[in-house]
């Protein structure tokens, strides 16, 4: 029994962090790229900056305080076809682990455009989110570990330099989902 448990723990790394792998080498092909990697210590430091930032700062601090790790890889290409959807296979493979579920999956242009949102739940609470946005000239993967309020993040439009771009059809549908 003990051996079985040890084997199980080795095979299924429960709560393992999602790693953005398989995208090595894209940076050289990209026109521009962004890499963000924040561990709990860095997030704590960042949260301290917003302590005295007024209402917006409080909102941002509340968001950050619940996060454990944030990793972002984003690439913008000058031309199409600089990456393949298959490059995302290693990331998507990890998201088949227990606890993760796909809440949004939009596949367009015969599989050349892919948009997916995965969430992880632990004890009924959001424990992580992964966003994969693959467009012909742009590829973005966001991995957030921790309790994150997606609606609050989406509502950051117009604050902290996030452009307030109106979303088509939003008002017609009554706004937020």
């Amino acid at each position, binding site marked *: 029994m003990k051996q079985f448990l040890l084997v199980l723990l080795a095979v299924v790394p429960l709560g393992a962090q999602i790693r953005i792998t398989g995208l090595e080498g894209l940076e050289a092909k990209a026109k521009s790229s962004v890499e963000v990697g*924040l561990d709990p210590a*860095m997030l704590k430091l960042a949260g301290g*900056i917003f302590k005295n930032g007024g209402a917006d700062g409080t909102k941002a601090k509340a968001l950050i305080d619940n996060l454990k790790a944030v990793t972002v890889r984003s690439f913008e290409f000058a031309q199409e076809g600089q990456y393949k959807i298959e490059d995302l296979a290693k990331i998507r493979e990890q998201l088949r682990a227990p606890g993760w579920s796909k809440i949004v999956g939009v596949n367009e242009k015969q599989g050349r455009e892919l948009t997916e949102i995965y969430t992880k739940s632990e004890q009924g609470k959001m424990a992580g989110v992964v966003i994969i946005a693959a467009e012909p000239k742009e590829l973005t993967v*966001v991995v957030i570990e921790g309790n994150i309020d997606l609606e609050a*993040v989406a509502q950051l439009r117009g604050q902290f330099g996030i452009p307030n771009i109106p979303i088509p*059809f939003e008002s017609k*549908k009554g706004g937020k989902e």
Partner: protein
Amino acid sequence: MNLETELKAALRRQNPGPGFANRVVAATVPRRRTPIAVWAATMAAMLVAGIAINNEYQHRRAERASEQVMLALRITSEKLNVVRAKVLKLETPEEDLEKGN
């Protein structure tokens, strides 16, 4: 010359010259030491400078971290809104799109 003669020559009495006693007395007076208050002040100044440098370093790290967080949240927010727009577009009937509603 034999050894005895040499020793006698070497150990013969000599006049030490004027002011010998004063020189001896001066050599026995303890040297002036740096007061402990000066050391304490130097240490305190170094400590304060060290703390200030560390604070500045930590502040810069925090600023850099907050910039990174905001960049990550900005990208996340943008992508969430792109997804939202796509989902809303998929849910919107074709006739509504043509009417531009």
